[in-house]
């Protein structure tokens, strides 16, 4: 009897939500466990780096890697798993697009460290001590991973075969992906494993969207009583749905919150934020620059709004300074 396919799960800069998503497969996880041999899963099982290193290259069938890449250690793991695995699946918004951690690309590394270790209210660090990558203590050298200057998506570090979108990916698309992999029915390399059509397609509010929005004002969710039936954009909320891939079954709009774009853009779009801006702002009501600006003022943090999950994949990649 041939060995069961070996599967690895790994996390880089992530919140752990993607791991939760795997657990959320509920009883389905048993089917997975039955079908595969898990050789790495730091959140749940005890494997050492050396265990993985010891495996021959290409001996792992699939590695699911979630989280963005910010440290040298994450890079090292990613590169190792790339060598060991036949298929690498970039798992979740952070690995795919940089995710929430990538919002740090608006700031210099030094400014972040300074804030975290010195200026942040509540920090008591009079000697301004910072973690060092290398410290000699009693003759022994202790090392820590290095923090990189910017946050990268997984595919900016290693070659990626497939992408599972979402923050986190929903159990449904995870299961579909796992089944496809196990059955060997894989699409073309580089495919994002969710429908290549925007979210409105599966949004229950779709029919309530008027063609002509001509917005005169943008609002934030806490500022209004959100109508649970009506298109959220039509209510003046920034709903990224039209510029975001579907597959989540419009979870956020169903929960009365606008889509924030975690599934990333369609395959036809390079830059989700730029494209969303192009669509929604072309048709705001005012015509004069000053009046237009007033409407734009309703979005105090454009980068944080339009690149909530995608700043690593913005064409410009990070703030230039």
């Amino acid at each position, binding site marked *: 009897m041939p060995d069961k396919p070996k599967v690895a799960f790994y996390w880089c800069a992530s919140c752990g939500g993607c791991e939760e998503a795997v657990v959320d497969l509920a009883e389905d996880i048993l089917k997975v466990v039955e079908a595969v041999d898990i050789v790495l899963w730091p959140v749940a099982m005890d494997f050492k780096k050396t265990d993985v290193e010891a495996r021959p290259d290409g001996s792992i069938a699939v590695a699911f890697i979630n989280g963005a890449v910010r440290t040298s250690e994450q890079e090292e793991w990613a590169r190792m798993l790339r060598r060991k695995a036949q298929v690498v699946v970039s798992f979740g918004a952070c690995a795919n697009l940089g995710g929430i951690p990538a919002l740090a690309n608006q700031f210099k590394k030094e400014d972040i460290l300074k804030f975290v270790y010195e200026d942040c209210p509540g920090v008591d660090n009079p000697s301004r001590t910072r973690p060092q990558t290398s410290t000699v203590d009693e003759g022994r050298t202790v090392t820590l991973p290095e923090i990189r200057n910017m946050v990268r998506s997984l595919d900016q570090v290693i070659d990626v075969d497939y992408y599972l979108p979402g923050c986190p990916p929903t159990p449904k698309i995870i299961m579909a992906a796992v089944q496809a992999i196990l059955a060997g029915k894989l699409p073309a390399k580089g495919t994002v494993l969710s429908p290549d059509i925007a979210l409105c397609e599966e949004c229950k509010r779709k029919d309530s969207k008027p063609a002509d929005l001509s917005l005169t004002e943008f609002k934030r969710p806490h500022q209004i009583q959100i109508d649970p039936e009506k298109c959220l954009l039509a209510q003046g909320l920034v709903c990224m749905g039209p510029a975001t891939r579907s597959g989540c079954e419009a979870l956020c709009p169903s929960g009365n919150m606008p889509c924030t774009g975690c599934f990333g853009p369609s395959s036809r779009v*390079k830059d989700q934020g*730029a*494209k969303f801006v192009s669509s929604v702002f072309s048709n705001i009501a005012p*015509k004069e620059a000053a009046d237009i*600006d007033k409407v734009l003022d309703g979005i105090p943090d454009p980068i944080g709004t339009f690149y909530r999950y995608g700043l690593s994949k913005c064409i410009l990649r990070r703030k*230039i300074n």
Partner: protein
Amino acid sequence: MSKPMEQGAGAGFEPRIVAFFCNWCTYTAADLAGVSRLKYAPNVRVIRVMCSGRVDPQFVMEAFAKGADGVLLGGCHPGDCHYAEGNYKTLRRMRMLERMLKDMGIADGRFRLEWISGAEGDKVKSVVNDMVAKVRALGPLDLPGKFAEWDKEIEELEHQISAQPAKEAVHAR
């Protein structure tokens, strides 16, 4: 223009500017500048679109990412769009794009939106010359160079790893 003014830039820095000109007004104005033999700085490369409204903010970002030091967008004057109101759509989305570019650290002056009618060949000249001078003063943006510079930190590790002998020379793919 053969006399570069080195200001905040290396000697002889020649800005590279990508321009998107609408066919009916600004592209025609550039044609008129040619027919009138006006002389202006050779730093601008024009990409023709039918309407400034065809210009997707992605194009502007892509131009910067591929090495443009400046991006110029030219359309018909408000009220004069060949397609009725295309230029208003341009204006609205580009106002937002300007804010985003600023937040991303791309200096004011590197992206410019100008209304130039088909009769304003001289305005093509003055806008191009002015923009070239201003971008020259800002210095090179050179995003491709910056991207390479940024990625050096991860390439080092890649080199280290690839320098080690592989545990097993089998690679499944």
